[in-house]
């Protein structure tokens, strides 16, 4: 579903943001991207939805060669990918319903489809009863669920989450992660860049660890800290 081969990104000032990344992510995978701040997690996600282009290397997302995509084709790629951010990026002057519908409308979708799809995703994220409310009237967890609904309304095969629980308290964090898990079970490939140790350690999913723009470890059922998991298991 997602494939990176020898991907590097060097900024004009010479800083290497990513260095020789090789990564394969299969259909329906759930992958955590962990590492210190500034280590290239967000940058890696941005390359996937073509917010940035790599200096060298090949990126394939759902069969689309991303790095050589013409500008006019980028919207097509983005309709295959849902993206969720730490700060939700909701439009504050639109209701939850309107925020979700907006994502469909701007792709030129039929009103018929909007009326069918929006309730479906709002139901999926459990916000049907608050669809007429504005983001300012919702809790952080609810806002993030609205953002996830918006990311999913186009039926993307891939959901990219950049610190989705960064602004949330532990109980909201749990809710959001459970929601992501449910979405994953429906077959959506999910990548989550996170700093949240508790989340990663509890879920025991594939963990790709970045350091200084390189992948240092890639474990099938990993922990947030390298080696810590094993010691916990041994001591437990």
């Amino acid at each position: 579903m997602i494939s990176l081969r020898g991907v590097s990104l060097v900024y004009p000032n010479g800083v290497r943001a990513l260095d020789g990344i090789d990564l394969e992510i299969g259909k329906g995978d759930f992958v955590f991207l962990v590492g210190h701040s500034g280590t290239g997690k967000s940058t890696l996600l941005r390359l996937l939805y073509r917010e940035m282009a790599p200096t060298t290397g090949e990126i394939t997302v759902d069969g689309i060669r991303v790095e050589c995509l013409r500008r006019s084709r980028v919207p097509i790629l983005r309709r295959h990918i849902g993206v969720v951010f730490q700060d939700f990026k909701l439009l504050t002057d639109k209701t939850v319903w309107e925020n979700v519908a907006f994502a469909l409308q701007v792709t030129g979708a039929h009103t018929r489809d909007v009326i069918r799809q929006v309730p479906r995703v709002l139901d999926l994220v459990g916000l049907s009863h608050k669809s007429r409310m504005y983001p300012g009237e919702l809790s952080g967890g609810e806002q993030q669920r609205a953002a996830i609904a918006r990311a999913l309304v186009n039926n993307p095969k891939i959901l990219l989450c950049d610190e989705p629980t960064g602004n949330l308290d532990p109980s909201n964090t749990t809710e959001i992660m459970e929601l992501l898990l449910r979405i994953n079970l429906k077959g959506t490939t999910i990548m989550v860049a996170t700093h949240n140790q508790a989340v990663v350690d509890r879920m025991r999913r594939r963990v790709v660890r970045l350091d200084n723009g390189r992948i240092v470890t890639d474990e099938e059922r990993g922990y947030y800290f390298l080696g810590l998991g094993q010691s916990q298991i041994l001591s437990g």
Partner: protein
Amino acid sequence: MQATAIGTVTVTIVLLGAFLYARAVLVHFGAGVLNQIEISAFLQDGTSPARTEAMRAALAHDPRVLSVQYVPKKEGLQELRRRLKGEIDTSILTENPLPNMFRVRVRTPELVPAVAAEIRKMPGVQYVNYGQDVVGKLLQLVAVARRVGIAVITLFILVAGIIISNTIRLTVFARRREIAIMQLVGATNAYIRMPFICEGLLDGLLGASLAVAALEVGRASLVPRLVAALPFVAANVVNVNLGTLVPQLLLVGAAVGLIASWISVGRFLRT
């Protein structure tokens, strides 16, 4: 800010319209004067009737020539007497001082100098007159007015374009979050651009409409007074055809708005 943009377009189009109108009047007026120009070719005394007839035939066959009229000296004197009647006592003339002459009219004013020069070279022609000074100056005046006007209008259209473009850029900037989200969820640039282009187009059209209205009011109230003050312009001003001017002005306004907004949104979408 939007009012500024519309206002600038209005001022620009008013100036453009006034200029085009004035030019139309001037061209009309000038054409009226220039079309009345005739070349008077005075013949040497003693030119044979055969030679005179040959000249007439040659001129009549020239495709540039509209009409040739032979005026014998006797007729010329009668005409002069008629024209000067009551001003000068022409009975003091004891002999006819006028030569025989041709009155030649050509098809367009621009042909006058060339045709006149050729006539002068014909044997038997003593002197050619077509109001050289007046014609030359009039032609020059029209050319200068045209050039200066075009420069001023170009400048104003440019200023209007820049102001509209800045207005749109501010709107784009105010909605940058929305635009970023649109791009994120896969809206095409054309889709994102559309409302801003429409806004620019509307600003331009609105400005141009106001300008057309202002021009119409100005023409209705100013021109009659102008005509009253300067009697000789009357017929020309009334005859100017304004049918194509209004759509032209609206088109210019719309084009300025369209192009300016296209450029300013395009710049934003590339980053």
